[in-house]
């Protein structure tokens, strides 16, 4: 659809104003390029170079800081933990949300509207309020400071995905399922062989958003993953920042390694990420 109000004539002042505002915003967006750029350059400096020449091009490109964090210390372990948490949490949460949303939106039963509202509560209550009970519950079932426990908590956060999926599932024509049913397909066959393939785009979008949130999560891993061997990347970076002068070059490399996955995802799927965010829970 063509959004531009065609034939609109802008006065010269309005045009200048727009140009100036655009220029300001472009300069503003350069801060992003600037900070990421400095970090990238700094991560390629040797430690001596970094101290004397904080901003500016490296004298010689060196991968010392990368080698150091990748081959010494626990960084690689944190990286692995973050991958496990993100993949486990995302797959689990998205799958669970799709199941739940399908059950709610495609069947008629008593208490349907109650359930819809019930699953929305999670969106309205920030996890900060419930983190202490979560801590105690996980401790009780012996999953505190363990990756599976954290993954279970991530999996339970289905509110937003469930809401979005419900909205989407309602748009699928009933005939699609009816004809499959006539061909003798069971409920779960229908769900896995018809619904999931049809909804691939929206499922992928929600998975993407969930993955980014979990990859970046700081608060929950900090409280629920206390022991050293289960720490996630964000915690490692926090550790580096709190002793910044000591771990300067390591932290640069660590930040770049943590950033790369999300930045790649963003460059590839920025429109889906935006769409998932705006088309989803928060709108309307």
């Amino acid at each position, binding site marked *: *659809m063509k*959004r531009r*109000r065609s034939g*609109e004539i802008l006065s010269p002042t309005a045009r200048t104003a*727009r*140009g100036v*505002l*655009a220029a300001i*915003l*472009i300069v*503003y*967006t350069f801060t*992003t390029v600037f*900070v990421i750029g400095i*970090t990238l350059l700094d991560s390629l400096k040797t430690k001596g170079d970094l101290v004397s020449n*904080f*901003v500016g091009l490296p004298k010689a490109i060196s991968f010392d800081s990368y080698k150091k964090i990748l081959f010494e210390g626990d960084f690689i372990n944190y990286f692995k933990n973050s991958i496990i948490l993100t993949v486990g949490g995302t797959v689990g949460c998205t799958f669970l*949300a799709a*199941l*739940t949303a*399908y*059950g*709610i939106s495609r*069947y008629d039963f008593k208490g349907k509207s109650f*359930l819809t509202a019930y699953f929305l509560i*999670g969106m309205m*209550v*920030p996890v*900060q309020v*419930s983190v*202490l*009970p*979560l801590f*105690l*519950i996980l401790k009780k079932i012996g999953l505190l400071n363990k990756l599976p426990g954290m993954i*279970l908590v991530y999996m*339970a*956060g*289905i509110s937003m995905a469930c809401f979005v999926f419900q909205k989407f599932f309602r748009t699928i024509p009933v005939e699609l399922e009816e004809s499959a049913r006539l061909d003798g397909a069971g*409920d*779960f066959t229908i769900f896995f062989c018809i619904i999931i393939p049809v909804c691939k785009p929206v499922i992928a979008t929600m998975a993407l958003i969930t993955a*980014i949130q979990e*990859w*970046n999560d*700081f*608060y929950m891993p900090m409280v629920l993953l206390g022991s050293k061997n289960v720490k996630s990347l*964000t915690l490692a*970076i926090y550790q580096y920042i709190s002793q*910044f002068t000591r771990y300067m070059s390591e932290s640069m490399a660590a*930040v770049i390694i943590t*950033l790369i996955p*999300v*930045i790649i995802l*963003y460059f590839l799927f920025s429109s889906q*990420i935006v769409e998932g965010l*705006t*088309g989803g829970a*928060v*709108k*309307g």
Partner: protein
Amino acid sequence: MRKKKHILFIAPGFILYTIFIILPIFYVFYLSVFEWSGLGEMKFVGLENFKTLIFNDRVAPTMFNALKNNLKYLLCVWLIITPFQYLIAYLLYIKIPAFKYIKFMIFMPYVISSTIVSFFATLLFSPNIGFLNKFFEWIGHSEWQSAWFGDPNRAFKLMIILIIWQGAGSGIMIFYSNLMDISQDIMESCRIDGCNEWQRFFRILLPLSLPSCASIITMSTIWALAIFDMPFILGGINGGVNGCLDFANMVFYRYTFGSGLNGKSNLGFGASICVLMFVVMLVVTVLQNKFLSKFEYDT
């Protein structure tokens, strides 16, 4: 026949969700009336924890200072961040030059973790090695140098700037897509009627898109009252110099997982802070929705 099968679909999600999302909310209320170190016996103390929280002369000032900061931040959300987001969304909507690039770049920090944003802040604002102080020295204006986050007058403002840089993108995109949803017929007729850009903004776009923005404003309010990551990393566990970056959630963290009240840990006391936060959230959200619903009208 489609009977009972829905239970199989809903049950797994329902069980996990109830255990890890719903149960904790009730559990925190339950805990708040006990004195409990996490081990051993739980002692029922009624509203004692809340009394300590509000009247104890050691705890209360910290708590109120933190709540004050929360409300200050909330005011910033309402008066600075949200209008800023709406303005940018509008600029994207009228397609200012390079709007595609701006849209892409302005949203990007949203996918960056707050830990990394705080790291970038350290790069720029660290008093000793930070880029800004070095830069001011280089251009010969050493008097512009500052302790930045170490300066209680500046720390809060800087944090707001960082939050705008990181988090404004999501709101901008939601406002933008709400603007895009306004029917083109309306835009067309207002163009034919010859209304100018100001009139179009204030009489058409703003009233038509505001009701659909109520939910995003509600969400940002809730998150504003629960803020933790950024002040924690930037200001340290004690909330910066003179508690200028102290927030309710950090007080909760300190007393529950940190040093504890009077040296002994009391989870019930931590829970009572959560309950207080929850109540403040509820009150603010209800009041805010009452206010926002005034703008709603039928289309």
